[in-house]
């Protein structure tokens, strides 16, 4: 019995090594300019901070986390062995008790409409910020978690530089994507690999109807590369981002291109 367990574990680590070194997987966002600045894609196994500047920011963080779950595709066994499908690894969302009241509860119907399968989502409600951090530690200890979205309101005392280092280290060890969503928070020093400011962006001025969800995001800090501003669109049917540049008029000011390569924003 122990031998077969060992073999299963070995097979698993082989599978992980085949798809790139553990914790070093980069997941392309789909937005060409952003991927270039990020060096191929958003690094799984690292801490990414998203500061929401308005109601669109939370959506961006969730979609970022959903995108990171594609780093692992597991075949979740079905009751019918024949009906197996590849599916992204589970997404865990940890939020405080009052977050649902303040920022709205998740509507899985809307999530499914965005192309993220609600079956892969586990929602964890934590009574206090300290519990949220402890739960995050538990979740990141499991190597089969796709990504974790940790939602933190304001600047709780427990979320200091040490806690953020701990989170970054745990994400690095497990290889899971970790997105820390900060709502109504001041920017303080942290161990994050990237830091984003995100808000909703209006549809193209020439359009009468609205189209795909759009985000004006700013990569303000990046430990291994440049920064920049991007205008992104979420493509539900492909489950990835794309440049929102049809018409190209509105997009131009947001593309301060990656000539900032090598400059580190603090």
């Amino acid at each position, binding site marked *: 019995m122990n031998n077969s*367990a060992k073999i299963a574990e070995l097979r*698993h680590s082989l599978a992980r090594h085949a798809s790139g070194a553990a914790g070093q997987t980069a997941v392309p966002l789909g937005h060409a300019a952003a991927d270039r600045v990020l060096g191929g894609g958003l690094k799984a196994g690292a801490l990414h901070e998203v500061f929401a500047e308005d109601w669109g920011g939370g*959506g961006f963080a969730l979609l970022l986390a959903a995108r990171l779950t594609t780093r692992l595709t597991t075949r979740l*066994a079905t009751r019918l062995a024949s009906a197996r499908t590849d599916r992204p690894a589970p997404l865990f969302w940890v939020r405080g008790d009052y977050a649902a009241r303040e920022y709205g509860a998740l509507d*899985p119907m*809307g999530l499914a409409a965005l192309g993220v399968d609600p079956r892969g989502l586990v929602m964890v409600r934590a009574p206090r910020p300290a519990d949220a951090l402890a739960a995050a530690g538990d979740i990141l200890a499991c190597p089969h978690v796709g990504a974790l979205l940790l939602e933190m309101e304001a600047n709780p005392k427990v979320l200091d530089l040490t806690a953020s280092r701990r989170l970054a280290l745990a994400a690095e060890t497990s290889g899971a994507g970790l997105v820390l969503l900060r709502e109504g928070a001041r920017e303080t020093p942290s161990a994050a690999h990237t830091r984003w400011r995100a808000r909703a962006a209006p*549809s193209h001025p020439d359009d009468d109807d*609205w189209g795909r969800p759009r985000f004006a995001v700013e990569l303000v800090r990046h430990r291994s590369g440049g920064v920049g501003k991007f205008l992104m669109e979420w493509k539900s049917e492909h489950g990835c981002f794309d440049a929102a540049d049809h018409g190209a008029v509105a997009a131009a000011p947001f593309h301060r291109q990656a000539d900032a390569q090598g400059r580190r924003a603090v």
Partner: protein
Amino acid sequence: MPEPLSGAPLVIAGKANNALVVHALEARAERLGLYPGQPLANARAMVQPLRVVPADEKADAALLENMADWCDRFTPLVTLDAPDGLYLDISGAAHLFGGEAAMLEDVLTRIAAQGFAIQGAIAGTSLAARALARYRNRTIAPPGGAAKAVSPLPIAALDCDAKALRALRHAGLKSVGQVAQRQPGELAARLGQDFVRRLRVMLGQAQDPLAPRRPLPDLMAEQRFADPVVSRDVTAATLLALAQSLCGLLERQGRGARILQAAFFRADGKTERIAVRMAAPLRDPAVMLRLLNQKLDALADPLDPGFGFDLIRLEAVLAEETKSATVSFDVDANARRQVLFLIDRLSARLGESRVLRFLPQDTHIPEAAAAAIPAQDDDFEDGAWPAPADPPPRPLRLLERPEEISHVVAAVPDAPPARFRWRQCLHEVARAEGPERIAMQWWHHPGATRDYFRVETRSGQRFWLYRDGLYRQAGLAPRWYLQGIFA
């Protein structure tokens, strides 16, 4: 309760039929001719001085519950016989205590040692044992001997109301045996069918199954201690040993535990229980121990051993069949099991209602379209969700309850607002789509029809608004609500 040697005789008085009556009394008072049920005024007239204490029925009931908890150490099936009795179903348990006589002696001396006046008896049916315990203390009726044992008891042992008792006395019946000789038909006509049923149970001719106070475990393992243990190390080691023997039992039956409960019986009578639920049947002692320890660490008040535990029991309250292969060659099955175990750990840490998954519901009402259920209750497969759509027709987030928006300005009466105020922010609408009309389920909760609009503000934020009711509904100004936020 220690009997005061000096001072006035003690009675407990309670209210019955709007009058104060003697509820309970000490032996000294009984010798003076007082009796339970006597009006208090009469008792005061007979004995002076008399110490009277008001009855506290709630505390009595709580005490009986505590005693029942304590008696769980003898058998898992304990039932209350309010206000002052307990039934213990000891089928198959007596041999653990060295036979019925030894067990009865053990139960009675240990309860008496705690300061209670106690009587007990063993018989084949609950009511026979009840009657014997009250009128022939320490009797053990052999199997099939219930009728013989209860026959000489007075008719008061039948525990029927005063009217029936009077009727039996008028008929000249003085003992249970005499009543039993009458035709059941006669008795039923005079005293009711229920009386006959109870009489048959008392005579051992029918069974009256006890309803357990808590669900009976499927399997359990327990450890008794001659000397109560206090140290955390011994407790932990005992839990591990119990988990190992429980897992042995589970393995032999090809089952795994879904609900695990550890019960700690304190020597002074208090019982502590902790329960852990699992998403998948489990029979790995190390994992069990880890989950239990996590739950113990998460307790608001740490487990207090007091004077020590004299019994620790581990129960598989619910055991389910497991699939034969415990370790699979399949990488993905392994991954799945680890994720389920993670869900168990989170549920043990935070409580199962805080670790949730979603199931689609068969309704078109937006706020009820999905239900959040404990993640342990379900696997990752069920549910048919809508396909991806560009742009999404439903918002990503719903407010817990729709919030009314104010200062609504609309170009034409039926149109969506051009400007509105919500949470102290003024929003200018740049684009709007709608209406999408959603009618409430009038057969469940009467509510107005809602006209939904998807609006985008000048800054690009997208909200889901609705107008409550039709615009031209009699005399009502339309009210607008914000219910959701799009990504």
